[in-house]
């Protein structure tokens, strides 16, 4: 069964550094998402991406965040200047075009900002 893959599985970075989290969504999916889960808290929506542009974003997704689909397969989340509170598990997901198509999630990238 096709799956969403994320790299790296764990990223440690210093405060103020830029990080790029990478995802390869399922190949025939059209919608792409990033969610995050701070330790002990709920899984929260960050952003959705469709037709090569951001379609929805949450209040969390401020100017420090950006997403890109640089080629036909990868989908990236960039955090320009990381803060301690960005430490979380970041999940990439994708879904198809049919109504209510469920999201398929990757295994996540655990980001630790020191």
């Amino acid at each position, binding site marked *: 069964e096709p799956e*969403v893959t994320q790299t790296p599985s764990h990223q440690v970075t210093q405060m103020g550094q830029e990080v790029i989290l990478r995802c390869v969504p399922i190949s025939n999916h059209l919608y792409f998402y990033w969610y995050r889960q701070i330790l002990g808290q709920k*899984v929260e929506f960050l952003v959705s991406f469709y037709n090569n542009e951001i379609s929805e974003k949450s209040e969390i997704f401020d100017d420090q965040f950006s997403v890109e689909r640089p080629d036909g397969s990868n989908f990236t989340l960039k955090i320009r200047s990381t803060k301690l509170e960005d430490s979380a598990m970041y*999940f990439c997901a994708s879904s198809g075009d049919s109504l*209510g198509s469920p999201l398929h*999630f990757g295994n996540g990238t655990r980001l630790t900002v020191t």
Partner: protein
Amino acid sequence: AQSVTQPDIHITVSEGASLELRCNYSYGATPYLFWYVQSPGQGLQLLLKYFSGDTLVQGIKGFEAEFKRSQSSFNLRKPSVHWSDAAEYFCAVGAIIRGAGNMLTFGGGTRLMVKP
């Protein structure tokens, strides 16, 4: 705005016992409801989904869930739990937004522990 509440943060059951995980939602229209499971170190795996029709839906791994509109609930059940079911379970409500896909709001999760 939609919201999801999972009242039980932790549940412990004995292997072979039945299981029910509670989920209550708040949503202004007909909800799209999901249950996901997260094993340690793993991503979120879809167990089952409800869109419309039969209010009792079957999922993978022997799980089922029942949508009760009058109670705004979508509880997850399994008749006989296996040790491998120990994981965290998330209920989610989805809002379909044209051009944005299926936007999920998650509950806080219920951690299931299974006693031998």
